[in-house]
């Protein structure tokens, strides 16, 4: 190669180098300029999916780019978590997940290839789903006080659950109220419904998305909601705290996450959008239909909130006797 060829080559390389520096900055300014993928650990059509699609719809309008939902169900949400930690932290792959997944996975599984606190950057929280304590409509129990008294007397009472959050929620109640029950697990909600209505189960803690319409239509009797405030979808149902179980606040709340290493300007932009969406009155309306309320934590607030909850989860997993896998 002669002198001229070498020089041209060097100049071109230098220019390319300049572009390399400029390009990411340009990407940040023009974010987003590609479709954004939101990964969730639930299958299409589930309550979580319904919830997510409302928000991605609104996000799409604000971001002016398609926002696609990637359902990656499996391993209690861990498949989705892993997928996001393996994605490039450029703001085009996000995760919508609940504290139950982020906190629960930490203590329910050993040897996960990621750390749920360190490997994700919270963007904003956006919804909290109330869980409802229900009994059969035929049951003589009408309040949490009744239930506690009943459980203290009955030997071998049965409680049901369809997911781990409900299971741990039940443990929490048992701990605070000082009762014991035999937990019965259900893979599918219809089976659980059948057994609670027929009275095989003494009570159940069920998620609000499915439970609220059932309660409103008289298929189930609600005793209390597990959130600290009353749920707008069931305004007549007292909270656990009102019903006498002090300090009870155990419900999944949802947060949007980005993988660790996502540039802060992008995270801030997304945070702004998410907070905008949660402020809309339409959002409160929609969430009411699915048994949820909007949340407005910023990223750092959500982070702190999760960290504060971790010890509670750790003790509950131990109390439920679940062996970490």
């Amino acid at each position: 190669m002669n002198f001229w060829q070498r020089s041209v080559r060097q100049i071109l390389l230098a220019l390319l180098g300049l572009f390399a520096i400029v390009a990411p900055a340009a990407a940040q300014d023009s974010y987003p300029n590609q479709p954004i993928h939101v990964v969730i650990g639930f299958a299409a059509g589930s309550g979580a999916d319904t919830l997510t699609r409302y928000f991605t719809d609104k996000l799409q309008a604000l971001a002016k780019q398609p926002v696609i939902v990637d359902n990656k169900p499996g391993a209690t949400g861990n498949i989705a978590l892993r997928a996001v930690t393996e994605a490039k932290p450029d703001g085009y792959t996000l995760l919508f997940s609940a504290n139950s997944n982020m906190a629960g996975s930490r203590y329910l599984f050993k040897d996960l290839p990621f750390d749920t606190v360190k490997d994700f950057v919270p963007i904003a929280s956006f919804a909290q789903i109330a869980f409802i304590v229900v009994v059969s409509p035929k049951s003589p129990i009408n309040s949490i006080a009744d239930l506690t008294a009943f459980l203290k007397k009955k030997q071998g009472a049965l409680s049901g659950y369809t997911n781990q959050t409900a299971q741990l929620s039940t443990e929490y109640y048992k701990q605070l109220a000082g009762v014991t029950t035999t937990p019965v697990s259900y893979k599918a909600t219809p089976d659980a419904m059948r057994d609670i209505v027929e009275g095989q189960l003494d009570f159940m803690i069920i998620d609000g998305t499915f439970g609220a319409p059932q309660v409103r239509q008289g298929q189930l009797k609600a005793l209390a909601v597990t959130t600290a405030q009353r749920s707008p979808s069931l305004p007549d149902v007292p909270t656990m705290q009102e019903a006498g179980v002090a300090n009870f606040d155990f419900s999944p709340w949802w947060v949007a996450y980005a993988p660790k290493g996502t540039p802060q300007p992008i995270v801030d932009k997304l945070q702004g959008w998410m907070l905008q969406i949660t402020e809309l009155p339409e959002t409160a309306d929609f969430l009411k239909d699915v048994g949820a309320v909007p949340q407005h934590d910023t990223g750092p607030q959500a982070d702190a909130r999760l960290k504060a909850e971790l010890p509670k989860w750790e003790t509950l997993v131990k109390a439920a006797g679940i062996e970490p896998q």
Partner: protein
Amino acid sequence: MEGSVAGLIHGFSVALDWHNLVYCLIGVLAGNLVGVLPGMGVLSAISILLPLTYGMPPVGAVLMLAGLAYGAQYGGAICSILLNLPCHPPHAVTCLDGFPLTKQGKGGTALGITMMGAVFGAAFGILQMIFTAPYIAKIAFSFGSAEICSLMLLGLLAGSTLAKGSPLKGVAMTILGLLLGLIGQDADSGIERFTFGVLNLDDGIELVALSLGLFGIAEFLRSVNNIAPIDTAYAKLGVSDLRPSRADMKKAAFPVLRGTLIGSLCSLIPGTGPTIASFVAYAAEKKISKTPERFGHGAIEGVAAPEASTHSSVQGDFIPTMSLGIPGDAVMALLLGALIIHRIQPGPRLIIEHPDIFWGLIASFWLGNLMLIFLNVPLIGVWVKLLMVPYRFLFPSALFFICIGVFAAKNTLFDVGTTLFFGLFGYLLLLLRFEPAPILLGFVLGPRFEENFRRALKIAHGDLHTFIDRPISAVFLALCLLLVGTQIWVRLRGPKTRVAIPTSVLDTE
């Protein structure tokens, strides 16, 4: 009764509205297409179409999505019969007798009978929904964990007769299916079984991957070496083969009826979907038949009964969903999700608060099935001609669709790898003359049996008598004993000896 008729008339007026008619048409067309493409399930298709429904009026949205659900059943039989490739698990049993029929040149007949079964099954399911919806719920609720456990046991015992060869091999394959069903996280204790630390195995092996691998890919691997003879055999198909003969229709009539009844029973019992319905219908036909050795070699009953049962089961699945708001399976859960997004609360009050949706849906079932018949029957000839496409184009294309379909189930390439693995494994089984069908049975029924067994015991506080104390469960267990008992009795009695005609009788005349 009058209320139902009035509601139905109202429903037709809703369903026949131009917009709704078009939505219904799109739904059934998409469903049919999804049914024909191997692996790509209704679930994936609905999740793709769901965002499109946000802007639509709720009635149209529900009609379209429902059309997808039952339309998919129409396409599923095609590949099973013509290519020995079950596009979806409910049609796996149809391969057993459908493909031999195709090899005999009667593929078109099989498809025709399938359509017949489909219409009858769907019509029965719809009528059931119109007139018996409230009573259905009561029946469904009396099936507790103990009952379902005993039913699953009955199914497992009966199903080991699915194999056409040695019963011992059939039992071995069923047990293999049971073992494969163990893989995954145990629902009760959260303990991972046989996952070897692989996160993707936490939920077990994907059913679609297993069925497509064992049936489709294994079959491809076997046929690849035998291309020439099959090419010429298919080319001999004439037009007359496309319409089922009177004799065939007569033979298929009762199986269709029986299959339909089994399908509707299965739709009532939570957790038993079209897959189980098709297996049970096939096993029942084989047991009832006077010539069970014909099954597996092209018995038309073996095609008619399972297909009728899947259709009636799918239509019946709508009942608990629409009348109680309790989804029977994932597809119904999606449908309910679509309703919730449109601010409609599912539940017993749906029929009162939104008669448009309830009765419009039922009316659209009639219209949709009608549209599907008009679409599919003329296309039978086209599908059969597909067989004339040279193998070297047909198989790679089918493999391509299989990979896409399997990937679409959970958005992961792991499942595609699983399909390949079971394809190779299934080929090995075929070489050793084992039948893959009972594996699927064990795989589907086994986990449900275990789950319900443990739950029934928990509820009864460890008392095994619960299975006998509860009447329905006791009946199923008695049937199990009867089943095993008759098998032993027949064996002990020895093979049926030919009646020895005294030579003296022959000598006269």
